[in-house]
């Protein structure tokens, strides 16, 4: 009997998800033993045309990482949805937009201006990337940037979600074990829409630091604090920590080593909008009552949208800056 087919694809992503899969060590060999790896651009050379030629639903499972930022990303999302029985939004970009999604706070013009004529770039001719270029040798094309970053489930139907930036390798191993068990008839697939490889609570719940009454009179950046207590809640020590609104599953790795949670596992269960819930949490514990004093504390957060929505902007209630959204068809 031929093995079921497995695919992994990266759209707008950094490649960290692929590394995280390889970091499962020998689990990758088990994956290979149980699946025929049919398409995985980071690991092997298969052309898009070969995927287009596959029969519909002939891939049993596709792990799709990366956000939808370009026409090519959207095309591949449609194509892989069509070719896959099970489509998994893998990693923060595919689920919530992640760091690429922060571009949604700017218009494309602003992004190009910053990237190609910014303070560290010399570009007197004001050159910009072109989507089509006719050279003597032929026509070159570059996929166009879309007005805003979208998540995979805003473009096609998604069967399962694996959050994290990147997903923890320990958690990926759990997901791969489940897939292998399903293939071998030893397990049932979870209900459609399930979040796999993550916890059902918040990072705070997993964090071993002790929590007492939170009274913030100053928000600092980590480099501004002379020392950190190793056992007390980081938020209580004046660091912006996203643990209260972030899904558990990472074993609170960052707070464990003295770095605040930055929210990469996305909104905790039951949280509609991770950034809004963080605003709720942070504003609640600011220990000031006068507007000017409150503002002094909040000045410690120079980029609130980028902090609260560092990973979840594209999937938040507002999704993008109004000017960027206005360019969407």
């Amino acid at each position, binding site marked *: 009997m031929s093995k079921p087919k497995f695919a992994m694809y990266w759209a707008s992503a950094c490649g960290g998800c692929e590394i995280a899969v390889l970091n499962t060590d020998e689990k990758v060999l088990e994956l290979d033993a149980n699946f025929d790896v049919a398409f995985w651009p980071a690991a092997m050379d298969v052309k*898009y*045309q070969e995927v*287009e030629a596959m029969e519909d639903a002939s891939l049993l499972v596709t792990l799709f990482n990366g956000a939808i930022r370009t*026409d*090519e990303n959207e*095309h591949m999302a*449609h*194509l892989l*949805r*069509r070719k896959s029985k099970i489509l998994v939004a893998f990693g923060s970009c595919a689920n919530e937009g992640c760091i690429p999604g922060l571009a949604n*706070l700017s218009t494309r013009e602003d992004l190009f201006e910053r990237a190609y004529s910014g303070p560290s770039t010399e570009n007197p001719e004001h050159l910009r990337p072109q*989507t*089509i270029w006719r050279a003597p040798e032929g026509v070159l*094309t*570059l*996929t166009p940037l879309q007005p805003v970053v*979208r998540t995979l*489930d*805003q*473009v*096609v*139907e*998604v069967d399962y979600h694996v959050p994290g930036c990147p997903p923890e390798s320990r958690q990926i191993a759990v997901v791969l074990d489940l897939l292998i068990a399903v293939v071998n008839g030893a397990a049932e697939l979870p209900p459609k829409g399930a979040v796999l490889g993550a916890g059902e609570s918040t990072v705070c719940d997993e964090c071993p630091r002790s929590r007492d009454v939170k009274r913030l009179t100053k928000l600092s950046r980590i480099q501004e604090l002379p020392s950190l207590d190793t056992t007390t809640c980081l938020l209580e020590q004046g660091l912006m920590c996203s643990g209260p609104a972030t899904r558990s599953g990472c074993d609170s790795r960052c707070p464990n080593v003295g770095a605040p949670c930055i929210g990469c596992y996305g909104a905790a269960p039951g949280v*509609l*909008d991770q*950034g*809004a*819930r963080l*605003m*709720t949490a*942070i*504003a*609640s514990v*600011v220990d*000031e*009552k006068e*507007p000017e004093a*409150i*503002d002094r504390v*909040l000045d410690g*957060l120079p*980029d*609130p*949208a*980028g902090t*609260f929505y560092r990973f979840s902007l594209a999937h*938040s*209630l*507002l*999704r*993008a*800056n*109004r*000017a960027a*959204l206005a360019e*969407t068809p």
Partner: protein
Amino acid sequence: MSDSFEPVIIGFTCNWCSYRAADHAGMTRTQYPPNARLIRLMCSGRLDPTFVLKALADGADGVLIAGCHPGECHYLEQNYKALRRHRLLQRTLAQFGIEPERVRLAWASAAEGVKFAAEISEMVEEVRKLGPLNWPARPRPLATVPADIPVLSEVAA
């Protein structure tokens, strides 16, 4: 902006002061524009910024948050929470390109029907000047993927 634009304002009021202020405005027959849809919370401290964002994302042109005067909260100091959330929310909304006039914080005691009516009237006029917010609906995935997906070379061209 067309004169016919009637802003939709969602108003979150607290059970003990601002909702009663609205009631008081009614009892004293104080006129104010009918643009606000009031939602009663037990306390302005219950207001999660999620409510505001959802209202704006789902069609409201503005949101009013109204609570007891500082120092008069039925739950001692939860209205200060509302104050802090409002200030933090305003900073965040600015990065989304949403004008501060669209999210207003107001205090009104149970006896201040006239003040409550004035706050709503003022806000309606401010938002009317700004025009509709018309936040685009969140994209939904295609129920079925198009049968003939164009090949990539055609997409690029």
